[in-house]
């Protein structure tokens, strides 16, 4: 029996080592995969943050250009139109030529004002279109706000608020 002593000692040890190795491989592989997943998640989160920052910057820029066009260029054009009305009203006994030129200039001014408004509306960020104008800085003036909140309470939907604000912006 002594001759088989190494067999009876070494075989269980080798079997235990083999089993231990298999358990180690399985556990270590699971840990590696978990680590890999964490790295992928971090990379995805980083990419998302970069994308979000880029989009925010782009939307901010669009909003700024749209605001400048709407508030400055638009109001200047409206002022020019007003001055034109005053000028033509002060001229007495105007000829047909002057009347024709006046009408032509008014028409052109209306077109330019319309174009500026359209461009400024087109430049509004996509997010604003989706979320509604009320969530954006483009709020109605104070005198209209109580009407606006009454409407929103009555309608109770984002869509109605949004359409109301769009209508207000078009008319302002």
């Amino acid at each position, binding site marked *: 029996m002594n001759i*088989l002593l190494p*067999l009876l000692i070494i075989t269980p040890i080798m079997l235990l080592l083999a089993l231990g190795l*298999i358990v180690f491989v399985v556990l270590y592989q699971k840990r590696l995969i978990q680590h890999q997943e964490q790295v992928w998640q971090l990379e995805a989160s980083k990419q998302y943050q970069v994308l979000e920052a880029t989009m925010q910057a782009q939307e901010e820029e669009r909003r700024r250009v749209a605001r400048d066009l709407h508030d400055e260029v638009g109001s200047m054009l409206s002022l020019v139109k007003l001055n034109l009305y005053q000028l033509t009203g002060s001229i007495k006994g105007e000829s047909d030529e002057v009347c024709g030129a006046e009408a032509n200039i008014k028409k052109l001014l209306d077109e330019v004002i319309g174009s500026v408004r359209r461009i400024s509306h087109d430049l509004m960020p996509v997010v604003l279109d989706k979320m509604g104008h009320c969530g954006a800085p483009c709020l109605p003036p104070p005198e209209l706000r109580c009407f606006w909140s009454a409407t929103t309470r009555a309608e109770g939907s984002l869509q109605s608020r949004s359409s109301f604000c769009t209508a207000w912006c078009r008319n302002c």
Partner: protein
Amino acid sequence: MQVFFEKYYNWLSYAAALSVLLPLLYGLLFLKRGNRLYITLYLYVLTIALIELSGHLTVYLGTDNNLWLSHLYTPIEYFLLTFSYYISLKYRNIRRAIIWSVALFLIFGIMNAFFGEGITQMNSYTKVLESGLLIALALVYFYMTFRNLNKLYLDQDPMFVLSCGILIYFAGTTMAYLMFNRALAISDNMARICLSITYVLNIFFNVVLLVVLKRASRI
């Protein structure tokens, strides 16, 4: 111990021999749509079945010694198992090493059979070398699994299951085969102790082969 040899040893021997029917019969179900790995593994199972049958036939026919079957079986076993690794591992260096190892192993087996231990003795050294090489291949496969990390569920990978089986089976049987000739020189019962360990691990390995065939059929 005597009770074990009289009552249970024969049962264990038959159970080990018949356990090969599990992967053999299961493997037949998916043989037609089997891939290269599946067919290689099924050929291996078929070889085991044929060798078991030959062993029992030689006993039935009353031959004194059927240990020459082991000299025949070991190189075929090594070739088929390494070929399954050859299919699974796509690295050129590993494949080249596998081809070289098969060639060298074949030479060693022939030399051992005719000039070493002899054809009437158990090919212990060949078996030990085979165990060492196959365990090394299983470890290489584990290393590649770590390196590639392309398998989320290891238990679904047939080669991983086979590597686990190889690791346990060959780690467990190496000492039994190494001691077999010396034990047989003392008494038959001593040799039977070695064979009992081998039989238990044979049953285990045949069940592993069944699982491996099941996984390989889904690839």
